């Protein structure tokens, strides 16, 4: 890699400065304010008095069974949801990484689930998942399979949400990985083939190593976003039955905007932040991808 020449500094500086300025300007107040709130007791329901209580909210979080339940549910989405999205997305991207007539159309069609507003995705799947009147159970019945209690069973409803999430976000993986595959020069494939490598060897030896930076980013972004899963939970199950499918973001929203315990909600947000930062850190460190070749 080229070293940094003196006269490059202006360019580097100018390139990075705007980003820093904007991000700082907008994020600094929310970060500071919400951190301060997390150290306060502020239940706006009654007269709105804010009292400083130090780590009280955090202590309360650690004995909050409902919070850990929501963490568990969210973890399920991360594991099964993002995992499946990646596997499916990679397979599809590989399938689409060849020239054929109508490929543009097909790629656009695959993008569709992502283009619809999450609110609407929730509405559609709510209709599809309806036990009595939904098309999914109807088709299952035609195949001789008993109706599934998609949304009314505590053990199934979390997975119904995961399924809808997979449907909605696999396109992200497909497009990102496809764009990454596109950047791999053709000659490398040729060279490998000339050397007698078979399909799998080409993939593991040439394609995957080059694709790694993009894979890491794609999974990282999805993990970060899946952690915030909210719209689907609200529209499909409202976290129900009971608390069976409550996600962290959903519980956080309830606490902050329905119960209006702003202090507690802020503390919950900071704990979430810590968890995501930890996950991202671990992820980035163990899969340290560098530009190869």
């Amino acid at each position, binding site marked *: 890699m080229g070293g940094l020449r003196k006269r490059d500094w202006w360019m580097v500086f100018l390139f990075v400065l705007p*980003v820093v300025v*904007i*991000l700082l300007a907008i994020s600094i107040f929310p970060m500071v304010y919400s951190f301060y709130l997390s150290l306060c007791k502020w239940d706006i329901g009654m007269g709105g008095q804010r009292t400083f209580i130090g780590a009280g909210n955090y202590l309360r979080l650690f004995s909050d069974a409902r919070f850990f339940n929501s963490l568990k549910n969210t973890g399920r989405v991360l594991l099964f949801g993002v995992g499946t999205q990646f596997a499916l997305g990679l397979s599809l991207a590989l399938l689409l990484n060849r020239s054929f007539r109508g490929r543009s159309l097909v790629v656009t069609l695959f993008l569709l689930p992502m283009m619809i*507003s999450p609110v609407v995705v929730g509405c559609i799947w709510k209709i599809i998942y309806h036990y009595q009147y939904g098309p999914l159970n109807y088709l299952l019945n035609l195949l001789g399979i008993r109706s599934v209690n998609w949304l009314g069973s505590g053990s199934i409803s979390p997975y119904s949400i995961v399924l809808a999430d997979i449907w909605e976000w696999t396109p992200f993986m497909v497009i990102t990985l496809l764009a990454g595959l*596109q950047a791999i020069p053709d000659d490398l494939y040729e060279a490998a083939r000339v050397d007698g490598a078979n399909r799998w060897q080409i993939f593991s030896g040439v394609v995957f190593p080059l694709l790694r930076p993009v894979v890491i980013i794609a999974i990282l972004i999805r993990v970060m976003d899946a952690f915030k899963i909210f719209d689907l939970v609200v529209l499909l199950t409202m976290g129900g039955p009971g608390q069976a499918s409550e996600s962290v*973001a959903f519980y956080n929203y309830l606490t902050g905007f329905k119960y209006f315990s702003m202090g507690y909600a802020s503390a919950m947000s900071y704990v979430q932040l810590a968890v995501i930062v930890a996950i991202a850190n671990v992820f980035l460190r163990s899969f340290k991808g560098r530009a190869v070749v």
Partner: protein
Amino acid sequence: MRRRDGVTVAVFVGIFVLLAVALAPFAWNVLTSFKDKGEYFTYPPVFVPSSFGLEHYVRGLHLGGAKGIKDSFIIASLTTLLAIALGSLAAYSLSRFRIGGDNFAFWILSVRMMPPIASVLPLFLFFRFLRWLDTYQALIFTYALVNIPFAVWMMKGFFDELPVELEEAALIDGCGRLGAFVRVALPLVAPGLVATALFCFMFSWNEFLFALILGRSRVVPITVNIAGLIGGHEILWAEISAVSIVASVPIIVLAILLQRYLVRGLTLGAVKG
């Protein structure tokens, strides 16, 4: 030769099946947009609506759908441009010069990690102070908080993928850093740029919570409008479907226009010369 054909067929079948699965719910959405009351939840499920009239589309757009699409379009376009322009510049520096090391890059990403719920009230107060409540700029900059780090990291990934040799060659040819960036690096990551732009646009288009709280009456993005169709005692399913379909048209058009850059031919690698 024959084996090749077998694989190709399998590939196409695979694509077809996955496409069918991916599109089935979407097809259901389209069907729903034509259904009348009493056809949404009934047995057997209505696969073919009784009429294919466009009254739900008209009604949905009339109930604020048109304004919603306009507002969302303005906000999403501007915030995407902002994110792409600033983000790819920063990403290039991060990728090539490792500015600030990993920590700086991570800080940028971490801005996006903050759960939105914690930021809603502070941002509301912040924009109120700036007298920016119920304006486009409030949402444009709020989404920038999410889009810029996203753009930076996505583009960094794509830049990382590029072998440095190409730019070195350009530099040796007397190009200058900026020239290397503009004439060599950028065109090569064009698919990534397009993908990132699309995602930024989609995210901003589909965001709900900030759109709800920071808007009021002058700025009512499409997501808030659609949510408004979910009434307490009356859910306008057909209008929801209709408006969502109309709302996805701009994005579809955008995607089609950008197809050229998103999915390039495999002759790409020959640039090496």
